[in-house]
């Protein structure tokens, strides 16, 4: 039972893969957020202190206090606060060609959402640029329902 084939004579090694499709229940706040994405809208949540959090959470990260279910529709456009240009995408990345990870402050939100921006070239990226979502063809209720953000004027 050759459960393993050594890769070479220098030393034994073998591929090892950890793989599982986790099933994550969402609860009221993330459930509403992902339902909104599926239906083409982005909703944040207002904390008792008045800040609008996107993505929404069940708590205020600054105080730990619960958030009430005070949902606020934001965006869908927003401003890039910072970005990182990925020249060589990894297989774990959502796009297979060069793109940017970015923190995007959606209009009406007080925090920035981490997502990807698809501009085709690094030269087209800049801090402060305006972006809009490009929705997935068949949204199912997950963060990838926004396939990517793209420059606002090309949306």
């Amino acid at each position: 039972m050759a459960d393993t084939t050594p890769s070479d004579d220098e030393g034994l090694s073998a591929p090892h893969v950890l793989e599982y499709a986790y099933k994550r229940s969402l609860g009221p706040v993330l459930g509403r957020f992902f339902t909104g994405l599926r239906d083409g809208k982005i909703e944040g949540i207002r904390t008792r202190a008045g800040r609008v959090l996107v993505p929404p959470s069940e708590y205020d990260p600054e105080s730990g206090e619960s958030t009430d279910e005070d949902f606020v529709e934001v965006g869908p456009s927003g401003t890039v606060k910072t970005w990182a240009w990925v020249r060589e995408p990894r297989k774990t990345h959502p796009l297979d060609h060069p793109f940017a990870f970015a923190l995007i402050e959606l209009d009406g939100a007080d925090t920035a959402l981490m997502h990807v921006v698809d501009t085709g070239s690094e030269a087209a990226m800049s801090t402060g640029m305006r972006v809009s979502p490009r929705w997935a063809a068949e949204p199912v209720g997950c963060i990838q329902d926004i396939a990517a953000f793209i420059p606002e004027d090309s949306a």
Partner: protein
Amino acid sequence: MAEHAAVIGIGQTDFDAKRLDVSQVGLIREAAERALADAELDWKDIDAVVVGKAPDMFEGVMMPELFLAEALGGVGKPMLRVHTAGSVGGSTAIVAANLVQSGVHERVLTVAYEKQSESNAMWALSIKMPFTPTMVAGAGGFFAPLIRGYMERSGAPEDTGIRVALKDRLNALKNPVAHIKLPDVTFEMIQNSPMLWDPVRYLETCPSSDGACALVIGSEKHARAASNPPAWIHATNMKTEPTMFAGRDQVMPRAGLECSAELYKKAGISDPRKEIDCAEIYVPFSWFEPMWMENLHFAPQNQGWKMTYEGATALDGDLPVNMSGGVLSTNAIGASGMVRFAEAAMQVRGQAGEHQIEGAKKALGHAYGGGSQYFSMWIVADQPLQ
């Protein structure tokens, strides 16, 4: 030298096979908010947070406390994440207690959890590694041979395990948050349940649960000021030995024997069976009750089964064990140790509702993990240690 510390708030989630109504965030907040409410404290009153859980592969998040910390009011605070296998819930409570006993903090929130429904426990507990064909079928496959070893050396009657399971399952009916509740459970039902890992039957085995447990541990000042009664921590102890080594007694591990002996000494207990009013101990398979009765020095070697047989461990016995229904009824792995510690504290606070042992003044909480190699324990009481 250590400062006094006490449990001043306890919160448990409702436990179930699948808590599909909450995220991981919602799950831990349910326990933490209940503990804060019990302690009559707010998030801002907490100095530090200690999180415990078993392997990260259960939920598929590496060090999940990092994304959960802010849900526990952790921003700007110290946060620690403990992982000592199955004993982790107990160890986590001890680390939290130490933060207060050291004099470093006044009020510490500690939470232990597992959301096992996100994956599969049998997979996550024994990941198949290259070069090593898996022979051991999950925890049951590991512990069943040890149980057979105990049966052989003690000569315990074969129905001992069934009797333990019946007692714990009846106790669970009195616990509002317990996961497995079988209102019409009988000796025959357990006896006739399928053999999974012979000699362990299905109803002698713990379930996989989703759930969390939280404690607020306070300094003497805060314990005295609390409006609900505190559970004073008299002693804590942790002890480890390696999983496998030549000459290891896996049935009656020395780490457990020494851990409990040192614990009693610290707590000033000379006759544990007499001086401890009740014990909530980690029994994932029914036969571990008699085994741990011996390991915890409640019974002489090879005679722990007699306590079960004579009813000593029943709710009306002289040393009630697993009043909550135990791990056999509820097992969110990372939380399980802390639930034991919490139940001991609930008993001495007089808060245990239908499963309250009347007049309980001193209680033992116990957890173990790995291959019966990690032990964590505490003694709590209704008065501070003199």
